[in-house]
């Protein structure tokens, strides 16, 4: 593999080099700046993939229509979160919640996470992808536990154990895929390369492929946060630093979903294997209903949005499980909208909990009066994530529901039930958070408004008008997803 300057190398090497430098550099301000800069370069490299010619597919690396969506979305959220993180962490240091010693490797870890996620997305090898997702898990575990409180450590431990089990199951599935490919393709790396696997999947032994998919769905599904293997997700979202909650919801869940989707496409290529859709639909629907009901009676604001992530990953998985051009399109759109809206919400929630000095919903109130910008951002974000018009999430949810109604109305009824339950819970909480009687500290917030406004503005624009090139692009990707 000889790679002169090209976008893919930049995508991988920038975070890696930045991580090495950040691990050595002293001084917080400098590191935060460099973190933003490195994320910006990564984003530029990702964006250039859209316009330049595709790099040739190598033995290990692959860029195609499917993963570009994930790469661009991921790098964008990675960049805005790094900007948010700079303000957020500065505040934590000033208030003494985090000692500089705890933060020594924070930025290096952030970049390692970016590297791992980009590697998982561009890898042309199912083994390499697995290693990358494991690396991403490890770095996030370290960052979830960064506050070193009881709750943070328990959350990190739970995430660690459940994540490890998930990853172990995914590896067993990966091994099975190799075993099933090896008699057809032959020994060695070729039997683990996506490009080879996709080409010859029709000749694979279907029964073993089915078993492999069950393990892969359960394994990577743990990382997507699908019920019933979701238990780590709310804790990790609630107890980690808020930038990490944003990255988990906006990025890591999508990367795991990407792995599931790839294997789904693989399975669909084999006529004799069972249809992977219904299993995904079932897990997705369970997550929607479960997540929606769990939204009630949450007392911690970040934990509540963690459950909302379970619900939305459920919707996305459900849509991809239904399959077909329209549902896949809706799934892609919903994934994009959810990533942007949810990380935008976490930006707002992060600053809100800093200003108020608490994450308890009961102790926060009247935000639109006390902190108009943060309050209204939260309102817009929650209205978006609840799936109300005119924001982008409404468009995609509407597409998911209507395409389901056209095919299996029974499922659509269950889905709508879940969605409306979730909507009710969110609006109920929003009412006391944003309006109502002001509670908690009235100090002015020192916040970075740009990342959250950018995210919410995109979600709003997408709800009002979807540009034609984007629609054609997503339609094309949806057709690949089968």
């Amino acid at each position, binding site marked *: 593999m000889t790679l002169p300057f090209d976008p893919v190398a930049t995508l991988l090497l920038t975070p890696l080099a930045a991580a090495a430098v950040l691990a050595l550099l002293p001084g917080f301000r400098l590191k935060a700046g460099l973190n933003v800069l490195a994320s910006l370069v990564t984003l530029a490299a990702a964006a250039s993939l859209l316009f330049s010619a595709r790099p040739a597919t190598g033995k290990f690396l692959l860029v195609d229509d499917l993963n570009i969506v994930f790469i661009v979305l991921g790098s964008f959220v990675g960049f805005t979160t790094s900007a948010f993180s700079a303000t957020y962490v500065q505040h934590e240091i000033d208030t003494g919640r985090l000692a500089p010693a705890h933060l020594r490797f924070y930025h290096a870890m952030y970049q390692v996470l970016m590297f791992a996620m980009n590697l998982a997305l561009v890898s042309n090898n199912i083994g390499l992808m697995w290693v990358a997702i494991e690396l991403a898990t490890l770095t996030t575990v370290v960052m979830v536990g960064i506050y070193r409180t009881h709750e943070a450590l328990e959350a990190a431990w739970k995430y660690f154990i459940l994540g490890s089990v998930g990853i172990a199951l995914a590896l067993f599935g990966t*091994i099975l895929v190799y075993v099933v490919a090896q008699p057809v393709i032959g020994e*060695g790396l070729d039997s683990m390369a996506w490009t080879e696997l996709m080409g010859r999947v029709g000749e694979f*032994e279907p029964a073993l492929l089915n078993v492999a998919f069950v393990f892969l769905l359960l394994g990577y599904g743990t990382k997507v946060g699908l019920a019933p293997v979701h238990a780590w997700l709310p804790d990790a979202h609630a107890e980690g630093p808020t930038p990490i909650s944003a990255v988990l919801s906006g990025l890591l869940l999508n990367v795991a979903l990407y792995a599931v989707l790839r294997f789904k496409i693989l399975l669909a290529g084999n006529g004799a294997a069972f249809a992977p859709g219904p299993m995904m639909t079932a897990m997705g629907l369970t997550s929607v209903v479960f997540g929606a009901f769990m939204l009630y009676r949450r007392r911690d604001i970040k934990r509540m949005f963690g459950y909302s992530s379970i619900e939305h990953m459920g919707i996305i998985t459900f849509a991809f499980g239904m399959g077909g051009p329209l549902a896949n399109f809706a799934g892609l759109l919903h994934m994009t909208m959810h990533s942007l809206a949810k990380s935008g919400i976490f930006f707002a929630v992060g600053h809100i909990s800093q200003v108020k000095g608490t994450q308890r919903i009961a102790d926060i109130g009247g935000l639109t009066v006390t902190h108009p910008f943060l309050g209204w951002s939260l309102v817009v974000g929650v209205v978006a994530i609840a799936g109300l018009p005119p924001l982008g999430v409404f468009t995609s949810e509407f597409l998911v529901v209507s395409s389901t109604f056209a095919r299996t109305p029974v499922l659509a009824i269950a889905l709508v039930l879940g969605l409306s339950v979730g909507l009710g819970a969110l609006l109920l909480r929003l009412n006391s958070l944003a309006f109502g009687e002001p509670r908690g500290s009235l100090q002015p917030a020192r916040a970075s408004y740009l990342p959250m406004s950018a995210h919410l503005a995109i979600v709003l624009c997408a709800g009002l008008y979807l540009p034609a090139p984007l629609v054609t692009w997503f339609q094309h990707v949806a057709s690949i997803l089968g």
Partner: protein
Amino acid sequence: MPSMAFDTAHLLAGGLVLVSFVLLYQDRLYGLLNIYAIHAVALSASVAWQAYLQGAPHLYVTAGLALGFKAVIIPVALRRIIERLGIHREIEPVVGISLTMLAGMGLVALAMVVMLKVTTEAAPLAREDLAFALAVVLLGLLMMTTRRNAVSQVVGFMSLENGLILAATGAQGMPLVVEISFAFSILIAFIVIGIFLFRIRERFDTVDLQALHRFRGEAR
């Protein structure tokens, strides 16, 4: 000779399943660690035998890693952690031992039925290996779910991971096996260091997960 080779591979992989069962009924932590060391030795022998059969010298690295890291370093480190932290030496299972053993037998039967049924096309050596490996993985999961104590959960996870390495080496000529076994060793080292750091330096006074559940974020 080939039948001899098969029989030895089966003997070693089957031995691993057997040791997994022995892990299931341990009621003392030190005993558990000793049995885990035997588990790792059985894995190492099995991997070395596969390396010899497949003529794949790089697998010896994985075998060596299993022997040195998992059979010696990890049990010794965990033993010292137990001493330093003063963890209760008894294991309190969630469900009774006999019920666990019965469930374990059911899981092994399930693994055999499923894997042997679906792998009719695969290479015969890989076939039985995969069935044994799945049995070890499921037994490891069973152990993780039926124990409350964090150290025994970790041992359950490590035995599960041994099953994965067995599966990976059983797959003829699978690339990246050594890398994956290294990645897993790092993961395990992280877990062990995690137990140590979190409990010693911070305010935990027990590694019993039940005690941790009191600190759920909701119950403030």
